[in-house]
């Protein structure tokens, strides 16, 4: 057996035991019938999937995708300049900046969410600031979708910046100098050199942000209130409160499907980047 297989073997085994088997169990369960007494019976049904298309759950699914997309979009917007700065700055600024950036990943999501409650709450820091500035716009961001997006951007930003940085560091300063020498303005260089060459980092950053964002539970539970509920919250409630495990399973399968779609889109995007290279040659 080649040595490489020995190297991935243990992890592969763990994946089968702890991911593939439970997941196939969930898939199976999602076709079973709910029973108030035994939780489920083995009668096969599509009822659980039909239920997802009722307005209430369809709305939650759409909201989940929307929150994920918005959070990813703002991560790109904030992350691109940051990643560029980090890939070009001094070692010292890098270590300080990295520390600040990665902080939210090291703090528990509960603590992070609580921090945002303090800031966004009715008597929180944001409204206090608005009041002192005499702006009469009592913000009611807390317990809305917006609060979830804000907290998610804060939490997910490092997942966008780190892969972007990795691909930007590989863009030699010489390339930028060569482009400048050829008369390219900074904006032209960003558009024609930096963005195309950091595409791989952008794709993996987006994938990481989106998949983590749509499967979040704690953040939306603490900050989203009723109008910010996501698939994760619904699954949690179905399992813990309603005891409708078959329906919870079908919701989980929807979530997994969304992630698989995102992953495929990322693969296509990455491959198209390579193909334009190959086709022109």
């Amino acid at each position: 057996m080649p040595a490489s297989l020995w190297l991935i073997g243990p992890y592969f085994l763990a994946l089968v035991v702890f991911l593939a088997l439970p997941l196939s169990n969930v898939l199976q369960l999602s076709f079973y019938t709910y029973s108030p007494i035994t939780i489920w019976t083995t009668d096969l049904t599509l009822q659980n999937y039909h239920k997802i298309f009722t307005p209430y759950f369809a709305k939650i699914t759409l909201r989940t995708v929307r929150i994920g997309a918005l959070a990813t979009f703002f991560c790109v917007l904030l992350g691109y300049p940051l990643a560029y700065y980090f890939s070009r700055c001094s070692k010292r600024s890098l270590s300080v900046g990295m520390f600040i950036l990665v902080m939210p990943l090291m703090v528990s999501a509960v603590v992070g969410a609580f921090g945002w409650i303090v800031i966004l709450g009715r008597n929180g820091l944001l409204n206090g600031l608005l009041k002192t500035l005499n702006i009469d716009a009592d913000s009611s961001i807390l317990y809305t979708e917006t609060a979830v997006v804000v907290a998610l951007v804060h939490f997910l930003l490092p997942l966008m910046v780190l892969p972007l940085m990795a691909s930007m560091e590989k863009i030699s300063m010489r390339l930028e100098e060569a482009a400048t020498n050829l008369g390219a303005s900074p904006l032209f260089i960003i558009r024609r050199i930096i963005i195309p060459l950091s595409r791989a980092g952008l794709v993996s950053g987006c994938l990481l942000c989106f998949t983590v964002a749509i499967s979040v539970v704690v953040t939306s539970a603490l900050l989203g209130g009723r109008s910010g509920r996501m698939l994760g919250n619904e699954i949690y409630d179905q399992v813990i409160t309603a005891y409708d495990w078959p329906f919870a399973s079908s919701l989980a399968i929807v979530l997994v499907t969304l992630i698989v779609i995102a992953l495929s889109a990322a693969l296509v995007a990455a491959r198209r980047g390579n193909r334009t290279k190959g086709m022109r040659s």
Partner: protein
Amino acid sequence: MSHQLGGEGGQCRQSERPCIDKHGEPRLEIADLIRRYTADVAVGPISFSVREGEFFSLLGPSGCGKTTTLRCIAGFENVDSGAILLSGQRIDSVPPHKRGIGLVFQTPALFPHLTVQENVAFGLEAHKVPKDEIVQRVGAVLELSGLSNFGQRMPHQLSGGQQQRVALARSLVLEPPLLLLDEPLSSLDLKLRIQMREELRNLQRRLRKTTVFVTHDQTEALAMSDRVAVLSQGHIEQIGTPEEIYSTPISRFVAEFIGSSNLLDVEVVGFSNGHLDLATAAGLRLKTRSPRMPIATKATALIRPERIRLVLGTGAAASPANTFAGEVRDMTYLGEDVHYRVLASQSEMFLVSTNSGKPNSPVVGQEGILVHIDPNDVFLLTK
């Protein structure tokens, strides 16, 4: 294609920029340029001017300030004092992307995600040149560079030499008034380097493109340049034609840096018949053709190895001036040339270079040979 590549007067693009092309007018002037890094590390003051159509080299060991000077001209380094004038206009505060000066780096620095064609078109697109004109100009410059068949290739599919040619084409397509080359050949292997050297020189002559070439390779500088500036520790030691630099160096540094040389510390001990008598510390007496100098003046005598003759025979006393009994101590066979280390008069070791394949060539350990140095070939340096 010549109207784009500017065979004759094309260095001057349209007429946005007043352009001084009259013969003898300097294209580039550097006046007292100083670039400070820390309190005690600085380049300059450096002053020189490059004439229209000239191939001008900055030659020196690493760290002498040649690349810094070039980067100041291109605008990638700030100038702390002094002035840079292009066609009579000050450019030292113009941002680098508006200077319009071509620069080719040591590494080709091609854009890896663009084809050869797109690489060459990049600058034209940045200047918002119309599409069909871009196609035409890119085609012309690729043909000129011998790259017509490579337009659709990606940079990684090209050899090192081809990549460097694309980098050059990418600069030339913009018809820059001045071309800067930062050791563009040093990443190539020897054979290709020599071939590219000739190619580059021919292209430069054909386009009459004013060029500043930075190199640490003295052979390269001598072979390609109209004039060479030898730099040392942030200042210019000497500016001259390759011939002047080689045969009449003004300092020990230049003599040592250009070619191989025998350098002897000597003292003036007499003057007769238009010849100075010199004595080395080891007691060897040399004559040189030179104006009178005061007795006891200390100087350095430079004798190029290919100027020393080795003759089989004895009887040094009866021979003309500067003939010494010698003994071959060491010999290096280099194919075309043979290098000898010869001890003359049991006192001074000389490096002697002769063509190989001569009859009666001396061998190691051989005694009974005469070392002859013409007094005209002993060059006295006082710096």
